């Protein structure tokens, strides 16, 4: 990892100094229309999001539950793509120089673009890092080097099934923050076990000082607050993607997503 700070590091440092938890929000780029995504990103920030995970749609999103799968399908109907995601981040940066943005997606669109072009594209667009769901530590080496060389962060997933030995191996490569998957399952599943989250965060904490954010199964302010009690933040996705999917137009999506994020922010800070 490089010593130079990027937006992700600065944001977590600020939150720590204020004694607050991070609210990480996920939407799919192009879901609800490519022309509405940047507005929606600004709304996330205005309502209290600290960091945006912009989902890159993929035809075969293996780790997603039905809600986010549908979000990917809708985004692809709107002709969204990795290239267009990068353009959206660049447009977002025109009005927001501070909020960290990472691209979350699958390996094949990156493979198609080429890892180096992808890393250059992130840098050029003003993105801060990437999380590639199906690129585990064993296969992540080359992309990791390209991201590090550009002062971009590589966010890894840790799960209840990750062994201590693997936690050590993954946190060696990880930067920015670590995303702890709270359950065995796909995104949007409903069986959150807080005792298990607490034990596993303690286990991970022994290996790294990186901020720990918890995702999968977070539905509202109360669950966000509960899972982040022993970590540094909560990641929320399915409820937001569901709200976008149920909205008639861009304005309605902004209202609904804004209300959900505001509620979470308020409870998280209480």
């Amino acid at each position, binding site marked *: 990892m490089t010593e130079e700070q990027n937006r992700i590091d600065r944001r977590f440092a600020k939150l720590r100094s204020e004694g607050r938890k991070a609210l990480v929000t996920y939407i799919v780029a192009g879901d609800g229309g490519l022309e509405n995504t940047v507005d929606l990103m600004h709304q996330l920030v205005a309502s209290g999001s600290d960091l945006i995970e912009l989902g890159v749609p*993929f*035809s*075969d*999103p*293996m*780790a*997603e*539950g*039905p809600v986010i*799968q549908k979000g990917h*399908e809708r985004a*692809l109907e709107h002709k969204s*793509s*990795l*290239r267009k995601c990068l353009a959206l981040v660049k447009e977002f940066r025109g009005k927001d120089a501070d909020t960290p943005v990472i691209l979350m997606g*699958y*390996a*094949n*669109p*990156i*493979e*198609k*673009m080429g890892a180096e072009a992808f890393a250059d594209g992130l840098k050029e667009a003003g993105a801060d890092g990437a999380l590639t*769901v*199906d*690129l*585990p530590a*064993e*296969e992540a080496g080359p992309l990791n080097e390209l991201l590090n060389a550009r002062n971009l962060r590589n966010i*890894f*997933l*840790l*799960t*209840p*099934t*990750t*062994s201590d030995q*693997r936690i050590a191996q*993954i946190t060696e490569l990880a930067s920015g923050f670590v995303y702890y*998957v709270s359950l*065995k*399952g*796909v995104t949007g*599943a409903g069986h959150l076990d807080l005792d298990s989250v607490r034990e596993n965060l303690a286990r991970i904490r022994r290996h790294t000082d990186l901020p720990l954010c918890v995702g999968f199964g977070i539905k509202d302010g109360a669950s966000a607050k509960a899972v982040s009690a022993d970590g540094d933040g909560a990641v929320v996705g399915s409820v937001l993607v569901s709200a976008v999917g149920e909205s008639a137009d861009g304005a309605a999506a902004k209202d609904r997503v804004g209300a959900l994020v505001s509620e979470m922010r308020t409870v998280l800070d209480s």
Partner: protein
Amino acid sequence: MSKPTSPIDYGAYPDARGHFGEFGGRFVSETLISALDELQEMYQRLKNDPEFQAAFDYDLAHYVGRPSPLYLAERLTAEAGGAKIWLKREDLNHTGAHKVNNTVGQALLAKHSGKRRVIAETGAGQHGVATATVAARLGLKCAVYMGAEDVKRQSPNVYRMKLLGAEVIPVESGSKTLKDAMNEAMRDWVTNVDDTFYIIGTVAGPHPYPQLVRDFNSVIGREARRQSLEQFGQLPDALVACVGGGSNAIGLFHPFLSDESVKMYGVEAGGDGVETGRHAAPLNDGVPGILHGNRTYLMEDDDGQIIETHSVSAGLDYPGVGPEHAWLRDIGRVEYVAANDDEALNAFRTLTRAEGIIPALESSHAVAYGLKLAATMRPDQNIVVNLSGRGDKDIFTVAAIDGIEV
């Protein structure tokens, strides 16, 4: 694409991380890594365990009915007018296809793992039936994911699975075919990883699946090699097998890879024709990419989205292919060709009328290319065509094409 200069030790592949050259590997979300590690560790231990091998051989002999015959198809040979065509009769196995070789093996692994539930993905339904069959035999719970489109195309197999006690779950996402069934099976596995064993049906998926599915199906090639020497006193001049994911093809090819004189042809589904783009032939017309846990040749668009495939045969309707085939293509050891829908249908009819054997539409692709290839060869030469499955399941599809209601 250059040919290697020194002989390759094919048995040394994949490497410890599951790579065949630049292909293969393990591209899955973190939750599954520990389950894959556990499976790999167990398989490495058991594959050299004489007791495990004896149990596998026993099941192949007494439950599957092996060895399957190597049959000289004389009237088919006369039809082609060239090399002798020998059919490796995997269609005579219990459940009617080669798929059972692998499910018998993986069921033994499931038994050793202590997990009480198995899941599978299926396209044509042959792997689903073969999985439901071994699950019934061992008293395991079984769920089979099948694309909603394939459920319609292959209703006899759907009913067979249900009779065998399996739950058949139609998959409505994406293109509603095999690839989507595999996505959904992976999602099930991620959720139920503690008590569920995933029986993958082809030589794709994350390491160690391409290796273990190959190993279990290699009985096809070991038998064919021995039978060739016994029945015509030499090795065959060429092997032909259809390739969807590629499990029957790798099963036939693998034991012959070091026999340099043996040419090998993998036949992909040409659909409406490779030149039309409407096909399922990634080794003919695809690019390397990452899907379903491995790096291999894929059919995708300029943004890396997987595109829909087209084939009259549900079992070949898959946008990827096993990573070992991708590697064998690039090093030039196996030649990958395509047979179009109409060529496969013609071969289906020709074999049925000439030999009294109704082949699966998947296997008909191999027969189609075998006929073409034989015509270019001498009568003293020998071709082994893998007849990977029987065609009873396909008679409704063929009847519909003929405009006949069965």
